């Protein structure tokens, strides 16, 4: 079966990634924390979050944010996209009742000395109109039809952060 595949010849620096908008409900925060096995109360206990952390509600946990960014990038690349690294800075928290909006732009395309083709993207997450997280990710994509970054093993896979 053919799956949607983004190949390097169809990507250029400056390209925008399609925007993703998600309304965040309390269950999204709690489900995300439980999926990540994160039992800390600020992700499920309103009283603890407001009184101990000094924030206005429970908020999204870090591993779940990483999972959202991964999903956002691979929605764009299709299943042949293979994440090399992801780096993000949390400037503010994501709370229930807010709308998360993911946006992104391609900053560069390059091929490493093992022949693996990489797209580097800068991503922004806003929630409730605030920029809550900025992120850079490096994702391997097929150079052309028939290439598959997932087949790289051992020293053919060199994703270390710059």
């Amino acid at each position: 079966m053919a799956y949607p595949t983004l190949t390097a010849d169809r990507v250029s620096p400056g390209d925008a990634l399609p925007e993703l908008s998600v309304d965040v409900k309390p269950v999204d925060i709690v489900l995300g924390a439980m999926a990540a096995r994160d039992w800390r109360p600020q992700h499920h206990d309103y009283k603890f979050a407001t009184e101990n952390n000094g924030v206005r509600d429970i908020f999204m946990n870090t591993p779940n944010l990483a999972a959202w960014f991964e999903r956002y990038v691979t929605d764009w690349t299709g299943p042949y996209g293979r994440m090399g690294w992801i780096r993000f800075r949390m400037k503010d928290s994501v709370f229930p009742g807010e709308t998360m909006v993911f946006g992104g732009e391609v900053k560069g395309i390059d091929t490493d000395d093992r022949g693996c083709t990489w797209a580097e993207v800068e991503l922004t997450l806003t929630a409730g109109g605030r920029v809550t997280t900025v992120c850079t990710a490096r994702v391997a994509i097929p150079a052309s039809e028939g290439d598959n970054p997932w087949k790289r093993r051992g020293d053919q896979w060199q994703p270390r952060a710059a």
Partner: protein
Amino acid sequence: MSDLPAEVQAWIGEKRYETEGEFDVERGYIFTTCSSVQNGNPIFWDDKAAEEITGGVIAPPAMISVWFRPHHWAPNREKQALPLQVHFDLKEVFDLPEAVMSDNTVTFGEPVRPGDRLKTWQVLRNVSTPKTTKLGNGRFWDIDVEYQNQKGEWVGTESYTGFGYRRD
């Protein structure tokens, strides 16, 4: 000259809390995680797609830390186990009751597959001098968490920047 206690200075660069996951990588958590972020990537849901593209079912790479988060309760455990123990050690040493994570970098190696039993360890990279932010007074610290599979293959590294603080 460092203002850090000798105990903390000794932790910097030291491989600590080497441990094996409490359970094998399993598919239920893979589905739950994909569900939590509405990730419909067929390599996680469709065995045929996974076979064709990734050589079999894999876990979303961003799940790397999930496999080491301890059970909330377990028999014969007297004290609740905490993930990222170095972070909690620092909170205790500096008497900083609150903490947040500000930066996170995750680098992904060999794919993680159901049935894998992973191993991890933590390395404290540095601790800042006292800082004041809008949250309170405290310190920043950088911690690396390394992950390997049962074959000794590198499967990922997480690097965290945390801020432990007191709301004065």
